[in-house]
């Protein structure tokens, strides 16, 4: 029976290790979130949403950064989404098994996890140098480039879930292909497509690196897309690395806001995805 005991022992050792790993991993992640809430909530007040970023040692909030982030994210997603959806539609509906689709699928997956700072460099070369100055536009384009692969991926996945008989039935009624896609497939996969957009928003709302040398930063309220614009992540970066207590506090609060927004979007996306066609 000693053989059996040995097997039992190695089993319990291994399982204990797995259990410990789970405790360790989940514990650390819980610790980070806990710290974030603890330090972030301390600075939550109305001023955060109504005041501009202050000079050191003065009272202030994050209004311009929040607004800048919202504007750049919304426009960036609005530009990136149609492009991504069209490309995703091509891969799911038209070129599912063609060579081109295979190559694009591969490239798209690479882009999906390419270092975002490289995207920032690309946009700097492409736009900032040519325009001669930093601007919200450059930031928006950088975000749009990051949005595209996310949307391509989810669009393709969601359209693949639409049952083929649906398409065949619609075609049998004499609908042209483009109608089938628009009226039938998009409708069937609607929740999933919105999920993709939500995920894309979640993905770019925390992006810092590509904004550092495209939209730069702005101390004040700016509604000019052709000028530098503040954004929450860049402000967090600047404030967290400063020696000023009040700036560090604002950085924590900003970090909490971003995390809250991203988690809300992700949870919303999951909930919608759960409702989509199975």
């Amino acid at each position, binding site marked *: 029976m000693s053989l059996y005991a040995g*097997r*039992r022992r190695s*089993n319990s050792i*291994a*399982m204990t*290790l*797995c*259990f*410990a*790993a*789970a405790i*360790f*991993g*989940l514990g650390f*992640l819980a610790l*980070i979130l806990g*710290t*974030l809430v603890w330090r972030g909530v301390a600075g939550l007040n109305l001023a955060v949403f109504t005041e501009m970023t202050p000079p050191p040692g003065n009272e202030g909030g994050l209004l311009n950064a929040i607004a800048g982030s919202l504007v750049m994210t919304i426009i960036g997603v609005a530009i990136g989404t149609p*492009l*991504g*959806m*069209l*490309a995703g539609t*091509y*891969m799911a509906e038209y*070129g599912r098994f063609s060579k*081109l*689709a295979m190559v*694009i699928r*591969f*490239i798209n*997956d*690479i*882009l999906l*996890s*390419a*270092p*975002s*700072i490289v995207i920032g*460099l*690309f946009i700097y*070369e492409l736009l900032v140098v040519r325009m001669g100055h930093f601007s919200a536009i450059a930031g928006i384009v950088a975000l749009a*480039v990051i949005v*595209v692969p996310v949307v*391509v991926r989810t669009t393709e996945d969601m359209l693949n879930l639409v049952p083929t008989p649906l398409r065949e039935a619609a075609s049998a009624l004499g609908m042209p292909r483009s109608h089938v896609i628009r009226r039938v497939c998009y409708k069937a996969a609607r929740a999933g497509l919105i999920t993709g957009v939500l*995920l894309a928003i*979640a993905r770019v709302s*925390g992006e*810092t*690196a590509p904004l550092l*040398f495209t939209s730069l930063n702005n101390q004040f309220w700016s509604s000019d897309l052709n000028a530098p614009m503040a954004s929450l*992540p860049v402000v967090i*970066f600047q404030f967290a*690395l400063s020696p000023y207590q009040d700036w560090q506090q604002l950085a924590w609060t900003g*970090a909490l806001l*971003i*995390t809250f927004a*991203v*988690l809300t979007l*992700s949870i919303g996306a999951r909930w919608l995805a759960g409702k989509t066609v199975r």
Partner: protein
Amino acid sequence: MTQIAAIAVLIILGGVIASLVSGSIPAFKAFGFDFITTETWNPVTDKFGALASISGTITTSIIAMVIAVPIGIGVAIFLTELCPPVLRRPLGIAIELLAGIPSIIYGIWGLFVLAPFLQQYIEPALIGTFANIPGLSSVFAGPPYGIGTFTAGFVLAIMVLPFITSISRDVFETVPPVLKEAAYGVGSTTWEVVWNVVIPYTRVGVIGGVMLGLGRALGETMAVTFVIGNAHRISASILAPGTTISATIANEFTEAVGDLYTSSLIALGLILFVITFVVLAFARLMLMRIESKKGV
């Protein structure tokens, strides 16, 4: 119409590569192959070498993987085999949500919470413990900054942990139940099932997932920039400040004076892109193999 959009994706990647290559030509013209093999990073004399940044990138990623891979796979096994069914879904969802948290959050936590803790409690002990052991004494040489290569690697580990966990869990779930049931049926323990059935069956997918995590770690900017210490030196000590490619670019790009300096930074970006491209391509091919298996 849709095809044009699809080709646009290709054009974006082409554009990224083209702009990086054209931007880095002056640097490679000036330094040639030495750019990759020299450590000097001296704006005063306009001599630039990428080795310190490259080695920092690779070192931090290795540290991250050494910590995150066993733990990540452990958590995945826990979730698929051990976890009470009540907790399985919420924990799984929690892990996936955490994979989406922006890296700047990990950076700010590393700077304000982890670094001071390491500086006060962990690093002095490490330095003291290994001070008299030849070899290891230089790996853990002081002074304790709290900020440095090890801290960056540790933050990266926590960052890629959810990522590796959720991919491993997904591929573990592709194992046909009938295989596991057969193994249990002949009296295997849970660990034997995991070790002899699940892991061999999903090996390719797990490696793919790990490589994806590695790709993330290599290119990560913010979580690292906060805690790496930005020093262009290759040090034997993993506690010493170092730098990575992305941290160097993030720190110095807006203030690089002179064309050669800027070009060197873009060349760094190109090197980073090439490294991550190779790793990601490899990971994707691995995952594609497991997907085709699943599709059968």
